């Protein structure tokens, strides 16, 4: 099942040379592998362990989160605006499920 992935830029339209934040929000339980269910059984680990950011097809940043990321996680990055283009964010969890979100960077 695809991981629902939302990508947002702040400010939405930065000026050339200005820094901006790229925030990713994913819909995922990020099971740490230590949580007990109502029957006392340990729920197996399944968390997003790879976050890749691409700009115009080129990889520009990578995060490898561990088991202690919150459910429905947020990942925040910062870039300097140089040219307009498309950001693609790719996520992957331990079970092999993936998510993808894109957003366009337009300069003010």
């Amino acid at each position: 099942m695809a991981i629902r992935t939302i990508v947002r830029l702040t400010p939405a339209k930065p000026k050339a040379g200005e820094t901006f934040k790229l925030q990713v929000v994913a819909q995922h339980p990020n099971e740490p592998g230590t949580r007990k269910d109502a029957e006392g059984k340990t729920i197996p680990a399944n968390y997003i362990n790879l976050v890749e950011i691409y700009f115009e097809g080129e990889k520009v940043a990578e995060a490898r989160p561990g088991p202690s990321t919150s459910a429905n996680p947020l990942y925040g990055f910062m870039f300097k605006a140089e040219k307009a283009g498309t950001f693609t964010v790719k996520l992957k969890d331990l079970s092999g499920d993936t998510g993808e979100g894109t957003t366009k960077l337009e300069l003010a």
Partner: protein
Amino acid sequence: MKAYQVLLTLPLLAMALAALDFGRWYPYDAALSLGQAHGRMVMVYFHSPHCPYCDQMNTFVLSDPQVSRLLEERFVVASVGTETQEGQDLARRYRVPGTPSFVFLVFRKGTWEEVGRFFGSRSRAQFLQELRQICAKGGVCGE
């Protein structure tokens, strides 16, 4: 006839074996039966799905290796979700102020006796210490 008997006893055997898994948690009635049958203290754990403090207990404290080992070796855990009707009735009967709550019961002289309780989340070290104290007080952990 013989085959019939085997068929009948197999599920019972399986149930008896499964019942010996004290690493898991049981519904209230099953936990009390097990506690009585095995001379163990019952920890009635009241929780609710929307309470972040229960989530914290489930994720880090009750799953801590030392905590879960002590529970498995000495206790029977009754898991009571207060979002169910049965859970609400039990919460009222035991007058628990909220979740997470832990009520400790020992079967003595033909009746269940409450030997301790606490309300609210705990750090792992504190929870472990309190479990040991209650365990000793209930006479199921030696002196």
